[in-house]
C-alpha cells in the first residue's frame, strides 16, 4: 500500500468526524466527532513517519504519543463541561443551550 491510501483514509475519517461535529445536536456526539478528527491526524503522523525518508524516524511516533495524551486530557475536560452544562440546563442538546443567543 502506498502513502496515498493511508492519507485518503485519514482524510475520509476527518471528514466523517467533521460532518458529525457540525451536524449533530447532542453535545457528547459532537465530542465524538472531534475525537475522530484527532485520530485522523494521528493516522497521518504515523503514515508519514513510516513512509518518509528521514533519519529521525521516531519523531512522528513520539508526536502521536503526546497527541494521544493531550486528547485524553481534552476528553476528560470536555466531558466534565458537558456534565456541568447538564446540571445547569437539564439538557445537552446544543440547540437548547442558547442563553447567550441574541
Amino acid at each position, binding site marked *: *500500500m*502506498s*502513502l*496515498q*491510501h493511508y*492519507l485518503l*483514509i485519514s*482524510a*475520509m*475519517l*476527518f*471528514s*466523517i*468526524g467533521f*460532518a*458529525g461535529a*457540525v*451536524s449533530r*445536536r*447532542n453535545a*457528547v*456526539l459532537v465530542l*465524538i*466527532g472531534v475525537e*475522530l478528527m484527532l*485520530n485522523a491526524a*494521528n*493516522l497521518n503522523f*504515523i*503514515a508519514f513517519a*513510516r*513512509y*518518509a525518508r528521514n533519519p529521525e*524516524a*521516531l519523531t512522528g*511516533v*513520539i508526536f*502521536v*504519543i*503526546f497527541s*494521544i*495524551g*493531550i*486528547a*485524553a*486530557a*481534552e*476528553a*476528560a*475536560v470536555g*466531558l*466534565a*463541561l458537558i*456534565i*456541568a452544562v*447538564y*446540571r445547569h440546563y*437539564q*439538557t*445537552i442538546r446544543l440547540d437548547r443551550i442558547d442563553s447567550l443567543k441574541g
Partner: protein
Amino acid sequence: MDLVFWITAGWTIASAGAALSFRNPVHCVLCLVLAFAGLAAFYLQLGAEFVGFAQILVYIGAVAILVMFAILLTRTSEVQEEQRRIPWGGLAVAAIVFMSLAVAIRSSTLAGAAPVSEPRPTVKQIGVEMFQGPYVLAVEVAGMLLTAALIGAAVIALQDSPKRQP
C-alpha cells in the same frame, strides 16, 4: 497485505460513519470503539506497535468508557426526540472538505512513496528517546498538563451542593 488493508479500511470507515449516524448515543459509542480498534489495527500495520497498543489502552480503555459514563450521567427522556432529518448542510461541507483534501493528496509528489525498509522503532528506542533524549521536558509538561486537566475536570464536574437550585 492489500486484503488486510482494505478490510481494516472498510471496517474503520463504516464504524466511524455509524458512530455519528445512530440515534441512540450508546450505540454511537459502541461503534466508536470499533473505529478506534480499526485505527489501532492501522497503526500495527504501519509498524508502530507501541502507538497501536497505546491507542487501545487510552482510547478504548479510557476515552470510550468516559464517554459512555457521560452519556449515562446525562441521560434524559428526550433521547429519542431527535427527529429523523438528514443534515444536508453539514454533509455537503464535509464532502467539500474531503474533496479538497483528496485533490491535494492525489497531486502530491510523495504520495506514491514506498515504505522505508529500515528497522521499526522499538519500545526501548521510544523510551530512551523520551526519557533521556530531547523530549524529557515535554514529557514533564505533558504530565503536568494531564494532572491539571484531571483536577480541573473533577472540579468542573463537582456538584455545587450548597447553592443548588431546586
